[in-house]
């Protein structure tokens, strides 16, 4: 029995699929007993959303945090971050579906493109972890939809374009790139003016409120490990996804006159990913989902000499994709912070004074600042971050009591927060390594030790 894919069925299916996919890691996390939000960055946004003094500092101001702040002002709750992410995810998918209708695609092609988009780690990351890219992607797809409207209605993009420069420079670059490609394809005056206006606005905003190139500091990453979710990349692509995208790229080569702008874009985005920042994969994902859908359609529509081989191949791809995403969802549902982490930080909040500084390994500062509401020695957005990283290394790895205590005193560090990850190889592999060895000294007092998390007070 053949099922006819109507527009209504496509919309209904992708809506349900998006909700299921985005809720699944949250549900897994909740039912495993972990009620905390996933990820490190989520806590930065929570902190900003509940603290207007910090929010309105220029380097932190993003429209995403502003919206969260607004929602929190109505009802104070961490759940807003999740609701906002999921709502933006659904909105993005529906808008992308609408955008794809402008292309000469069949319902089946569009359907598969959307399925591959939803079932991609980069998409799940963007709309499950509380982060500004969920709003950025939504806005960009909305702008793309409005640009494809006829006549002066294109200028409806203006209010949304106004928000973009307040995100990172990467987002502005991507937006400008999109406008440029659109103008090259369509040669519409309205788009030209919008592009020029947007560029001017970006320059102005950068002068008045300088934004970072990208929000996450470029800490260095392995290209392969971050690019492939199967190798552990949090925002990467699945191998099967990529396989189909490559098939799609090859099989649409004959129509390269239509897609000529895509190939250099893909190369540019991959190079950007490799050398600058991995967040770009969130945008690359849309392009690859497009070609993955094309790739699957080519496999499906092709007249195979052996029909059973065709069915088996497609089945393998789909099962592989589902298993890959299943594994990814399970992996992220177990991501930090967990309940012991949250409990320890809440205890620290209740058992320390407001201006006391807490020391821990890099990446933990958002939890310390957001949950424990204490100043962290390391702050990724601090201009002296690199110097502080060196000091942190000395503190963590040195067995020289004099050196370590001097550094702790000079930097007014009062508490040291340690979790299982740190003693399990992230920082130390041996119980007598570095700072752990120095804890024998009476100047260090273990004031908290529960479920693998330790807090040490330095006197």
């Amino acid at each position, binding site marked *: 029995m053949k099922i006819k894919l109507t527009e209504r069925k496509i919309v209904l299916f992708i809506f349900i699929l998006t909700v299921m996919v985005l809720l699944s890691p949250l549900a897994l996390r909740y039912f495993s007993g972990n009620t905390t939000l996933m990820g490190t960055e989520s806590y930065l946004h929570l902190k900003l959303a509940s603290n207007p003094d910090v929010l309105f500092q220029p380097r932190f101001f993003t429209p995403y945090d502003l919206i969260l702040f607004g929602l929190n002002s109505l009802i104070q709750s961490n759940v807003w971050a999740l609701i906002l992410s999921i709502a933006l995810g659904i909105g993005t998918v529906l808008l992308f579906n609408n955008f794809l209708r402008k292309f000469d695609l069949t319902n089946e092609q569009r359907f598969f493109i959307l399925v591959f988009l939803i079932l991609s780690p980069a998409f799940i990351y963007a709309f499950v972890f509380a982060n500004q890219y969920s709003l950025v992607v939504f806005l960009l797809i909305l702008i793309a939809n409005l640009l494809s409207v006829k006549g002066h209605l294109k200028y409806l993009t203006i209010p949304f374009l106004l928000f973009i420069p307040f995100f990172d420079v990467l987002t502005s670059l991507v937006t400008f790139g999109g406008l440029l490609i659109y103008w090259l394809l369509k040669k519409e005056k309205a788009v030209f003016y919008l592009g020029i206006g947007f560029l001017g606005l970006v320059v102005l905003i950068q002068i008045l409120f300088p934004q970072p190139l990208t929000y996450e500091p470029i800490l260095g990453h392995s290209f392969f490990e971050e690019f492939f979710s*199967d190798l552990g990349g949090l925002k990467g692509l699945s191998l099967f996804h990529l396989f189909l995208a490559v098939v799609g790229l090859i099989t649409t080569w004959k129509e390269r006159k239509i897609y000529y702008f895509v190939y250099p874009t893909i190369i540019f985005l991959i190079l950007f990913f490799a050398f600058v920042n991995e967040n770009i994969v969130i945008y690359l994902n849309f392009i690859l989902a497009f070609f993955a859908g094309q790739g699957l359609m080519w496999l499906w529509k092709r007249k195979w000499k052996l029909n059973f081989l065709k069915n088996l191949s497609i089945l393998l791809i789909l099962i592989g994709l589902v298993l890959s995403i299943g594994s990814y969802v399970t992996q992220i549902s177990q991501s930090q912070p967990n309940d012991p982490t949250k409990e320890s930080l809440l205890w620290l909040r209740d058992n320390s004074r407001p201006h006391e500084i807490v020391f821990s390994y890099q990446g933990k500062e958002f939890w310390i600042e957001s949950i424990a509401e204490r100043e962290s020695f390391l702050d990724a957005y601090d201009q002296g971050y690199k110097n502080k990283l060196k000091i942190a290394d000395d503190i963590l790895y040195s067995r020289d009591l004099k050196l370590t205590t001097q550094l702790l005193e000079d930097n007014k560090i009062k508490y040291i927060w340690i979790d299982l990850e740190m003693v399990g190889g992230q920082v130390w592999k041996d119980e007598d390594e570095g700072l752990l060895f120095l804890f024998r000294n009476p100047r260090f007092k273990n004031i908290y030790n529960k479920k693998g998390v330790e807090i040490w007070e330095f006197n």
Partner: protein
Amino acid sequence: MKLKYYHWILIALLILTLGSRLFFAFQTPYFDHDAYFNLRQIEHIKETGLPLYEDDLSYGGRTNYFPPFFHYVLAFFSLFLPVTLVGKIIPNLMVSFLTLIVFLIAKKITKDNNAALFAAFISGFIPVLFAETINSVSELTLVIPLVFLALYYLMNLQQKKFLYGYLIIIVILSLTHASTFLLILGLIFYLIFSEVEIIKRNRNETELILFSTLIFIWIQTLFYKKAFLMHGISLVWKNMPADIIASHFSEITILGTIIQVGWLPFFYGVYLMFKYIFKEKNKYIYTYISLALPVVILLWLKWIEPSLGLIFLGVTLSVLFPEFYVITVNYIKKTKFSKFKYIFPVLLTITFVATSFLPAVFLAGLQLERTVTEPEIQAMAWLEEQEGDVVLGALEEGFLINFLAQKENVFDDNFLLIENSEEIANDVKTIYTTNSRIEAVELLNKYKVDYIVVSDKVKEDYQIKKLYFRDEDCIRKEYKGEIEIYKNNCEVKTMVI
């Protein structure tokens, strides 16, 4: 069917190849050090029906995932024969069949029986293949013949039996060893070449190659998913510590390549590649060139172990060789020397014997010296009788400690799913090279080591003459012989600073 002259020669070649292999294999009752991992797996499958994925002895307890088809094949034979005999005979038998497969391929390409016989002869005595697989109980003894059988089937897709045969082989290969990816890569290169060179492909080929790629990725993901997540890109180098990578993924020289692959296959194979790439369009030649090229690239990048790459390269070049033979013979026929055309095969045989057969025998002899020795066996037998669980030895002795001494090792050659492989390797190096008893004992206690083996391998690996921190109190020599074994009775007490 009446057997023709070349059938008899082929049978003789098979017997010669198998006979030579078994001759060398039975020069020693023991195996290469790495073989003991597979032997242990085979025994476990024989006893329980399942591979030993949760290993209590390796690294003091670890998880191990690998495709087990090869081990199941040998376990089946071990129902009828002792495991050690199976380890000697079956792998050598399987790889000897390569001569038949190469004959079939060469005949398909050249339609010349004599050329095909030469190819078969060469393939039986590729030095690196011969030496590395005699006593190693290696999966490559199944992978290599199957890879080339798959390629032969791919050349005959007009007949449905070969098509189904190809599918079955691809699934078996994916369940046998990860080195199958070299075949997959070769097939992808073939697709690219045939597009660029506009070589007409059989419609089935594209579909089969797509399917092969998918099934291979799928099966490898099942086995190695955890390893992918844990190790990331260092999975390419099997998560080996830096010091050990250098010895396993060493640089290979042109001369080394020629010696290990064989002079004839190397030079004539390279000549053919230059002749055919972007010049003449021969679909079958392109198939094998497509297999050779990625191997060369990966060897150059040091992304595969030299022995693996050279084995694939050697067999591929031996398949390409007969084309050169036919070209040369046809050329000679047209020249003044046509009456000497029968001398050419004789000269070729002599050259092959001198440049491949003899080096193969020589390398096999060298390899025999590296197999497990009688003193090692005796030492392991002694260890098995002792109380105590953990034995520290050289890297290569790890599997031996598990299989023969039935004791836990501190480390061995299988680094997959070991999180702190670098740390362990460094600690072991420190133990063997330090003068400080405290430092050594701290590390020995960290790994709960009961016995420390000091063999020639240890001395060679760590450039030591003895165990520097030994004493008569707590690190006492308990076994004396060519191998020394010390017992650890020491303890370090922690002080407050």
